[in-house]
């Protein structure tokens, strides 16, 4: 699992969570909430979908790691790798 692959999986989830958003130009370094209409319930949806689709748990203390696409990839890629 590369970081790019990880980003793609996260974007797949976000496209379902926020289906009205244009995700083609997401800037990886910018906070997701600063470029998309996402609220706290949406982030809970992202956490839930990671759990359902990929068996990955994100403890509440680590929610901040999901702030941007880049930080998602940094945080989640080792978790995906551990699953492989």
């Amino acid at each position, binding site marked *: 699992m590369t970081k790019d692959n990880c980003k793609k999986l996260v974007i797949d989830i976000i496209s379902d969570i926020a289906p009205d958003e244009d995700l083609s130009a997401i800037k990886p370094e910018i906070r997701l909430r600063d470029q998309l209409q996402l609220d706290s*319930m949406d982030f809970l949806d992202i956490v839930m979908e990671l759990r359902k689709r990929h068996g990955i748990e994100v403890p509440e203390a680590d929610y901040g790691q999901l702030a941007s696409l880049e930080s998602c990839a940094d945080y989640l890629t080792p978790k995906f790798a551990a699953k492989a």
Partner: protein
Amino acid sequence: MKQTRIVITGIGLTAPNGNSLTEFRQNLLAGVSGITTIDVRYMGRHPAGMCTFDPLKYQKKKDVRIGTRVGGISIYCAREALADSGFKLDESDKSRVGIYLGITEHGNVETEQEVFNISQFKYDTKFWSHHHNPRTVANNAAGEVSLNLGITGPAYTIGAACAAGNMGLIHAAQMLRLGEVDFAFAGGVSESPQTFGIFAGFKSQNALAVHEDPTKASRPFDKARNGIVISEGGCIYTIERLEDAQARGAKIYGEIAGYCVNSDATDYVLPNPERQAQCVRKAIANAGMTVEDIDLVNTHATSTPQGDIQECLAIAEVFKSRSTPPHINNTKSFIGHTMGAAGALELAGNLPSFDDLIIHPTINIDNLDPQCDIPGLVINQPKVAKRVCAILNNSFGMLGINSTLIIKRFAA
């Protein structure tokens, strides 16, 4: 005491056979059923009435995802009613606008879905959705409308089993008369076919309709009727005090003439024709009318063997003094039982009679049950009336709640 006059100024609806009043009415006059068959979880295919409106007409995809089916139905109906009314909501004090929606039940759909969802994960509740609580609170339908329209006045539902559609209108009229609000969205809504529990419950009661042709499954008053067809739908009216409606030059569909809500206090399920008759009589008295003034009775009859007879007994008793009976029809024969929406939807399908003087029929009567053979029943073909000045609409529900609403043709 002279009552403040309350009038209907807008109608938005979705029914299994129409997504606007025009389409709905055309199909009622043309004998077009809206019943199809659907897959019911754990139960296979059953007749049901499903609506085909476009949820994305008034909602974003994300709101459809997060909200409930009944929330989407409510938003569609409320927006359609608002557009029909011509009321300028955005130029009005939204804290003085109320939303009052009748519901038969709420939360079954969403809870069943979550139980099914966690069943896919060995019943581990960490997979239970954080959306479950806002989806299942009893005010969900009205709350989603308030969010969608930015209305900050009172927005809640009225739980009244299958009497609820009338109750939304009755309660809204009361709030307008009390001066609590200046403009109201009122009616009833239902998402019931999405829950297997209601199908299973009626089946266990031996009250779920079975027919090889789904369009024939809902057949009130017919000898071969064997139960209810469960349907979804919604109908929301905009209603106002007469002087407010006239001041803005609103179109007026009709005036709320009178109503009654009472309770059988006899059984959880079985209706009581004495209390139903009392409800009808009290509504007529509340309207300042006599039985001679009623031109059309829209029945509640749900196509169950016992319930239809009980209502016929009640109606025959109330109108026995009439030399010429009122016209009597039934809308569930076309759309099934839309539960919380039934009273409001069935009324809407009949309101055009004030203008066209046509009574839509009760369809699917091949062999009229002699016990349902009451004078005035309009069977299988529309009938032209000499006069339609007052429509009486019955809606009854479990635990013995009865509601009767009378709408009269508007005359200044």
